[in-house]
C-alpha cells in the first residue's frame, strides 16, 4: 500500500476530494498546514509597518491506497489541484507496510 500525501491550495480541496471519490476512494484525511516555498507571501502592512508573511495556508491531504491505484490517484490529485500558478503544491508517495481498520480489525487493502 501507498500513502499519498498532497499539499494543495485550500480552495482546491473540494475538487481533489471529488476527483478521488470518482476513482472509488472511500476515505481520506485532511489537515490545515502552512507552506513555505517558491510562492512568496504578500507583504502585508500593519499600522504602517511592512512585514512579510512567510507561510501560506495550504491543505494536506493524506490518503492510503492499494499499490495499483497509487499512480492514478497521484495523477488525479495533480490534475484536480492544478491552477498552473506558483504554489500549487506537491504530491509525495510513501510506502505503507501495514494498515488496520480500527472498527473491524481488518488489515491490508481491506482496511482502506
Amino acid at each position, binding site marked *: 500500500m501507498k500513502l499519498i500525501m498532497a499539499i494543495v491550495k485550500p*480552495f482546491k480541496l473540494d475538487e481533489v476530494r471529488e476527483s478521488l471519490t470518482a476513482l472509488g476512494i472511500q476515505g481520506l484525511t485532511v489537515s*490545515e498546514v*502552512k507552506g513555505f516555498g517558491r510562492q512568496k507571501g504578500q507583504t502585508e502592512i*500593519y499600522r504602517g509597518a511592512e512585514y512579510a508573511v512567510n507561510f501560506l*495556508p495550504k491543505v494536506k491531504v493524506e490518503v492510503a491506497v492499494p499499490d495499483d491505484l497509487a499512480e492514478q490517484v497521484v495523477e488525479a490529485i495533480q490534475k484536480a489541484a492544478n491552477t498552473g500558478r506558483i504554489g500549487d503544491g506537491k504530491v509525495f508517495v510513501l510506502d505503507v507496510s501495514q494498515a488496520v481498520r480500527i472498527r473491524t480489525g481488518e488489515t491490508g487493502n481491506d482496511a482502506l
Partner: protein
Amino acid sequence: MRKFFGFSVLTAVTASVTIALTKSASAAVDPETAFIFNTLSFLMHGFLVMWMAAGFCMLEAGLVRTKNTTMQCAKNITLYSVAGLLYWLVGYNLMYMDVSGFMGSFAIWSGADDVITADGFTGDGTGYAASSDWFFQMVFVAATASIVSGTVAERVKVFPFLIFTVLLTGIIYPIQGSWTWGGGWLSEMGFSDFAGSTIVHSVGGWAALAGAIIIGARTGKFGSDGSVHPMPGSNLPLATLGTFILWLGWFGFNGGSQLAMGSAADVRDIATIYVNTNMAAAAGVVAAVILNQIIYKKLDLTMALNGALGGLVSITAEPLAPGIGTAVLIGAIGGILVVVTVPLLDKLKIDDVVGAIPVHLVCGIWGTIAVVLSNDGASFTTQIIGIVAIGAFVVITSAIVWGVLKLTIGLRASEEEEFLGLDRSECGLEAYPEFGGGSGRV
C-alpha cells in the same frame, strides 16, 4: 420651529388621545424644567441609539466568516461616521427645513437655540435644544445605513459601499423622511410611523434588497442545481452581543421618539413604550424559537436573534398605543415572519448574509400595517400608500445608485479576492490571525 411642529403633528396623530392631553397637562412643569427634560430625553435616548451602531457591527461581524470580519467592522464604524457627516452637511435640512411636501432644503445644518438669550431662558411651552434633536435624528440615519451593510457583506468592495452610504444618508433617507417626519405629503395624508418601522427599517431593507440583487450572491452560495450552501457565521456570541446591544438601544429608538419627556403624560408614555418594546422583542424570540423547533427540531440561535429583532422592528411603527397583549402579538408575528422569510429569500436566490431583509424590510412592513390594530387614527389604506410610496422611491433610487456604481467603479471584489476574503484584499489584515486557519501562530 417647523421641524418640531412637523413632529408634533405626527405624534399627535399617531398617539391619538393621550398625547393630546399631554400638552395641557404639562402646564404644571415649568417651561425651563420641561426644556431640560425634553433635551435630556433626546440625549439619553440618543446615546442608546448611537450604541446600536456597535450592535449592528457586532451582529454582522459575528455572522460573516472570519475572512470578512475585519472588513465588516471597518465598514460599520466608517458608515456611522459618514452618516453623521452627511446628515450634517445635507441630510437634516433636506428632511426638516422648509419641507415643501416632497423634500426640504439643501443646506448645512447649524443648530441655534433662540429661546436662550442673554436674559436666560425665554421659551414658553415645550421645547428642547436643537442640537439634542439633531443628535437623535442623526443616530437614526446611521441605523438605516447599518442595515444595508449586513445584507451585502462578504462581497461588496468598501469604497463603492461607502459612496452608496453617502447618497443614502445624505439624500435618499432624508427625502423620504421629509414626507412623514418632516411634515410632507405622507404626514398630511395621515401616514403613521411612530419610530420608523418603515421610515428607518424598511428603507434600510429596501436599499439592502436592491443591493443584494444588483451585487449578486456570494460565490458558491447557490449551486447551479438550485441547492443552497450555507456559510455559517463565525462568531455567534458576538452576534448575540450585537442583538442585546440592539435590544437595549431600541429603548432609546422607540422611547426617544416620544420626542418629549417634560410632562407626566410624556414620561408615562415613554414608560409604556419601553414595556411594549421589550415585550414585542421577547415575543419575537419565543415565537421564533418555538416555530424553528417545530419545523427544524433545533434551536437555531441565529433565528432566535433575528426573532428578537423582528419583534423590535414590528413594534416600532406604534410602540405606544397597543396594550401589552397586542404588543406581544405584533412581536410574535414578527418573529414568525423572520423564520419563514429567511429560507424564502434563499429560494429566491437573494443572498442576505445576516437576515436584514426579513428583519428590517418584512417586519418593517408588517409593523407599519399593524399600526391599525391599536391606533384609531390610522387607516389601512394610508399605511399601505406610505409603505408602497417609500418602498418604490427607495428601491428605484437605490437601484440607480448601485447600478451606476456597478457600471463605473464596480461593486464586487474579484472571485479570488472573495475566496481569500475581503479582509486580505481590502484591509490587509486578518480579524483573528491566531485562530483556526489564521496565519499568525506558526
